[in-house]
């Protein structure tokens, strides 16, 4: 019964949390938020799915793209830092500013770097949550196997 509620919550809440994560990430340079926080929020969204559907199902759903995020994020972050070499040295920021519909928009390598940070955080958290969740499930399976063995021996 609880699982059904959880699934419902998961279905509604997960996309919302993801949106919040993206929002936090985008405003991070100016207001509280940023890569770390956004990454952690996204990770908690996925944790919700794990709670609702189990680790194995979550891996099937998010695994292929969520887990490699750790490596990808690190690559992006280093890449962003290396881009600075173009502008005079490692980690030198590059900013592109232009206005659109009266709003000033800016894109820079620090933001790209922040994106890398977010990816790494998501990837790392997901790895652990999925692994431990799966380990828990496997332990249950192992336990039943042992119990069945014991029962067999009793007979």
């Amino acid at each position, binding site marked *: 019964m609880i699982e059904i509620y959880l699934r419902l919550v998961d279905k509604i809440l997960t996309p919302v949390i993801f949106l919040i994560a993206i929002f936090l990430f985008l405003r991070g340079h100016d207001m509280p938020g940023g890569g770390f926080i956004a990454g952690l929020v996204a990770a908690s969204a996925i944790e919700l799915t794990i709670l609702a559907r189990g680790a194995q199902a979550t891996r099937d759903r998010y695994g292929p793209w969520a*887990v*490699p*995020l*750790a*490596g*990808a994020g*690190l*690559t992006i*972050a*280093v*890449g962003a*830092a*290396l881009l*600075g*070499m173009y502008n*005079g*040295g*490692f*980690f*030198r*920021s590059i900013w592109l500013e232009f206005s659109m519909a009266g709003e000033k928009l800016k894109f820079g390598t620090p933001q790209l770097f922040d994106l890398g940070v977010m990816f790494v955080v998501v*990837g790392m958290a997901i*790895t652990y949550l999925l692994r431990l969740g799966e380990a828990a499930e496997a332990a249950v399976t192992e336990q039943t196997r042992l119990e069945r063995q014991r029962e067999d021996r009793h007979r």
Partner: protein
Amino acid sequence: MSLHPTVITLPVAIPLLLGAVGMFLQFMQFPRRLQIQQTLVGVGVLVNLAVTVFLLVFVLNGEPVAYQMGLWTPPFGITVYLDALSAIMLVMVALLSVLIFPFALATIDSERAQLGFFPMMLFLLMGANGAFLTGDLFNLYVFYEVMLMASFVLLTVGGTPSQLNGGIRYVVLNLVGSMMLLLAAGVTYGTLGTLNMAHIAVRMNDAPYLVQAMIAGLLLIAFGAKAAVFPVFFWLPSSYHTPHPAVTALFSGVLTKVGMYSMYRVFPLFFPWLLNQWQPLLMTIAGLTMVVGVLGAFAQPTIRRLLSFHIISQIGYMVMGLAVAMTPNPYGIGFGLALAILFLVHNQIVKTALLLGGGAVELEMGTGKLNELGGLVRLKPLQATVFFIAAFSLAGFPPTSGFIGKLGLLEVTFSAGQWAIAGVSVFVSLLTTMSMIRLWQYIFWGKPHRQPLTQRRQTAPNYAWMTVAPVIALVALSLTLGLVAQPALDMVQTAANQAIDRAAYVKAVGPTLTEQDLRIAPPEWGLTAASQATELAGR
């Protein structure tokens, strides 16, 4: 010759980039990812070696180089600083990684390889390089953590119970050490208001002794815990014998040496006067580290346990060199530090050679227990020869690098009037010889007790060469360092002079710093090493 200072970030950037790609592949379940990872690591270590050698040559011919991360004004951004000392360390670590790589390639089992062993090597390299290069106290903490995390993973990959037990000790004891470093950085910021090392060096002059003692003490514990000095070395013998031999070799060449490097970097820069004032303390630590380490080795029943304790014992010599670094002596101030650096380099070479040689024996015989080995001199004459030279180099026999280091340290401690520690070092040298003889005789002489594992899968076609050639190269290097000692001595002397030259450090980091930026006029500016000596004698 000029050089864009951003080049000095390459020893961090290259391994990090390649490692990140390797990590990405690791999680991607890419087919043939193992081969690609191995290629990446091979390229990474080679390019890293090339870059670091280039940097060393450059620094030896000229001034230290500093680069401001993101080109921010000095005390505010993070500074990366390269002088001869850090360049020597970079080259040594790069060289060791290049030599350990083929050994790992040949011997690592597929399980560990599949689990991301190879990218992890690059991350360890990156962490160490970052620690060597950084000119910022907090950044030093961060790179310590990178290095530690990489070593945690390398230590536990494979996950046998002994690895896990050793791993927990290793992790916890090192974490407590890192905590001290973080607190030291905190106290530094809280009292001096800055984290940039050059800036700290300038402001430390005016700090009350309370603050100096606290920062110095916390740093001593933190670095000491990393360098495995008495009495905070427990993590090392609990863990070094548990992982794959290639990992042990890599650790011995990198981890403790980073701790020593940090001491060499930070103490002469921040509080050179404390090196004299705390000399009795440092000498006691050095002596106890030597003695306890070597006696520990006496009690060990297996190859790598024994060699791990020798790592500790040899660290004592390096601390001894640091302790006399600022003592006036006929050879000139800083000569003790120069010899300590030389000894460190020698130790990296020889200890790695021994661990690789011993590791190969363990892998081939299926055990590291001394009393189950024997008679290998007939079976493996080449391995035996190089192991013999390495063992006696560690014991300090001429004409190897060990002799030069031992002789130099003896001369400098005697001439600094430190008779007690010199005596202890000579005695420990004898004990080291005894221990090395024991190791050698148990493994290579006597009657063979068991046959090599024949069924063991040898992962590489030219397994034999890939395991022996690195040891041969290292032993040749040790002999070269011994026979062609003067260039090496000149090099370490340059390194030591740069390391104790606070004015040059500050000047290199902040040529644009105005006194207003620094807030406090640095009384040390313009002082050369020689005039520092007279000043120190006064303190």
